[in-house]
């Protein structure tokens, strides 16, 4: 129902979005993954008719929205990355205003406010001022505001940044319900892999403005199907040992964290003997070895050579 065709945005000295073609089908839940600066927000700004593309097109049900943004503005709800609310007003007042922007009034408006407040679990605190809410509650109102006009498509730009686990679970659960129970089409942007794994049927991975991979979760993981991830925990940090291990033949990707090392290797690589041998030489103690099938995080790492989060 919604697609972008070779969408491109050039700023003075960067190409923020480069030849991006996405498709959102009715009722689908699609993830847009990418590290900081990948161009996710810029792409969303163009899709939502906030920003004009340098080239390319955005289509809703086959019709370009660039010249006639009206229909898109009616059916689309956008949850912005930054909390965009009037913080000196209450949640109720904010929602009332955003509902009015879409022509709601009277009873219908009040009912809708009650509904979305219930949805995000803030019905009992609606009279409080937004500035007195916790970060997580503000995020929830931020979502609620985009829901006022019953959008058919909901685009969320990192809606869970900087919130406590409880609010986050609540939010994720809400989005899942909207998608599965109410058939709302969802485009979910994040750099939290777990969220996308949990919520989305299909995933686009963006980096440096380009889509570098797309597919269902399974398809993406199949990129690494002949590989496995080995996670090794040590008793402490051994930088030299870590370097040595990442140079073992067959290791395709190595990431060191404080006391542990993560290696991506082809299936069947005989790693353990070499591992224990080297550990012995450096006097290091291996605490735990864990062999996993790859996650989307690993896929990302493999594709970009970078981690999703810095």
């Amino acid at each position, binding site marked *: 129902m919604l697609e972008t065709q070779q969408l491109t945005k050039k700023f003075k000295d960067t190409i923020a979005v480069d030849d991006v073609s996405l498709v959102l089908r009715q009722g689908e839940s699609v993830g847009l993954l990418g590290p900081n600066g990948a161009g996710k927000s810029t792409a969303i*700004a163009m899709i*939502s*008719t*906030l920003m*004009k593309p340098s080239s390319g097109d955005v289509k809703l049900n086959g019709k370009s929205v660039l010249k006639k943004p*009206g229909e898109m*503005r*009616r059916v*689309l709800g*956008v949850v*912005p990355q*930054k*909390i*965009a*609310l*009037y*913080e*000196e*007003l209450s949640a109720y*007042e904010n929602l009332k*205003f*955003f509902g*009015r*922007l*879409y*022509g709601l009034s009277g009873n219908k408006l009040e009912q809708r406010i009650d509904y979305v407040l219930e949805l995000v679990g803030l019905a009992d605190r609606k009279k409080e*001022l937004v500035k007195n809410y916790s970060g997580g509650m503000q995020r929830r109102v931020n979502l609620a*505001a985009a829901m006022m*006009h019953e959008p058919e498509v909901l685009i969320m730009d990192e809606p869970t940044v900087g919130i406590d686990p409880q609010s986050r679970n609540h939010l994720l659960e809400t989005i899942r319900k909207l998608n599965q129970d109410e058939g709302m089409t969802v485009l979910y942007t994040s750099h939290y892999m777990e969220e996308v794994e949990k919520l989305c049927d299909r995933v686009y991975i963006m980096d440096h403005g380009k889509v570098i991979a797309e597919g269902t979760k399974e398809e993406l993981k199949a990129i690494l199907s002949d590989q496995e991830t080995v996670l090794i925990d040590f008793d402490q940090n051994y930088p030299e040992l870590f370097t040595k291990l990442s140079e073992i033949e067959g290791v395709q990707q190595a990431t060191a964290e404080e006391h542990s090392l993560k290696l991506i290797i082809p299936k069947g690589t005989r790693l353990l003997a070499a591992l224990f041998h080297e550990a012995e030489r450096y006097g290091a103690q291996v605490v735990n070895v864990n062999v996993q099938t790859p996650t989307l995080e690993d896929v990302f790492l493999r594709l970009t050579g970078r981690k999703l989060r810095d």
Partner: protein
Amino acid sequence: MKAVFLLQWRRFYRKPLLVLAMFGLTVIFVSVTAAGGQSGPQMIPVYADESMNNQQAQTWIERLNGEEQFQFELMPESEARSYVAEGDVSQAVNLLEADYRLLVGREDPARFALDSFLRRIYSEELRLENAEQTTPGIRAEMESALSDPALTLSVESLQGEEDSFQYNGQLQLLFGMTLFFVIYTIMFSLVRIVDEKRTGTWSRMIISPVRKWQMYLGHLGYSFLIGFSQITLIFLLFRFAFGFELGDRFWLLIAIAACYTFSIVALGLLIISLITKPQQLGAVIPIVATGMAMVGGAFWPIELVTNEILLAVSKALPITYGLQALTSVAVYGNGLKAVAIPLLLLLGFGSICMAIAIRLMEWRSAS
């Protein structure tokens, strides 16, 4: 548009402090300062030296007190000097036979009014005396002619007649402070547009079905109305609660207030289209407001300004025309015809600012 407009009132209701402060400051400033000044005509000590006998001096005093702008009192020089020295009055007059001297203790806007008043009376008087020497009896003739004129000529002009500058300290203060403080109210409500662009609520509106001009109109409408209400309420308050004499054409004062408010709203929009950072606006707005008020005559009458450059600058400021029009109506009792030009200038100024501002903003958001 209605939603955006109504929202601004809701926000005002939740956060009224700034506007109330500007309203309160105007009221406090005007009422305290006006109460500090004497009510009724200002007393001016007058003394003469030996060049004039008591009889002559007394005649002068009567002549000077013939008009009620000032209250002249004859006294010995030492007494007049001590009045001035102790700061009870700002100035005293030393009468000479065909001239006068001002003894000035401290700067007072009234000095210029006093000076021009004395100059007028003196030149009239000296001309009459000259005429009397050639045509005895002309004074009596003139007086009877004046009390029974063959035709009356009423002069209405923008500034009032050039050398009949009337100084009404109370109204000068009221108009000056009102037009000054309302600049803050108006411009800081427009800063909300900048704030919305920063926080993202502006983007939220853009991607809604509401059109951009409706968003602007909602904001501008609010800023206009809040500024206009502030001026109107202050005028009503001072007229009815404080008993200020505002002339017979109150509605015209309100019309002037509306035109002035429009011009300031437009100027504010121009400023926020040029300066897009809220912190910078926090510095720029007070500079603009104070600068305009000083040059445009809100703090002291523009008639006191002699510097050519400042006078030229003042011609480009809406506050100059606002004050001029208000004074013209309230102090000189003029009607709509007399203030039509300043009103048109205010509206023209506003339209130009608004046109430039909208161009600038569109150009910026397109690039």
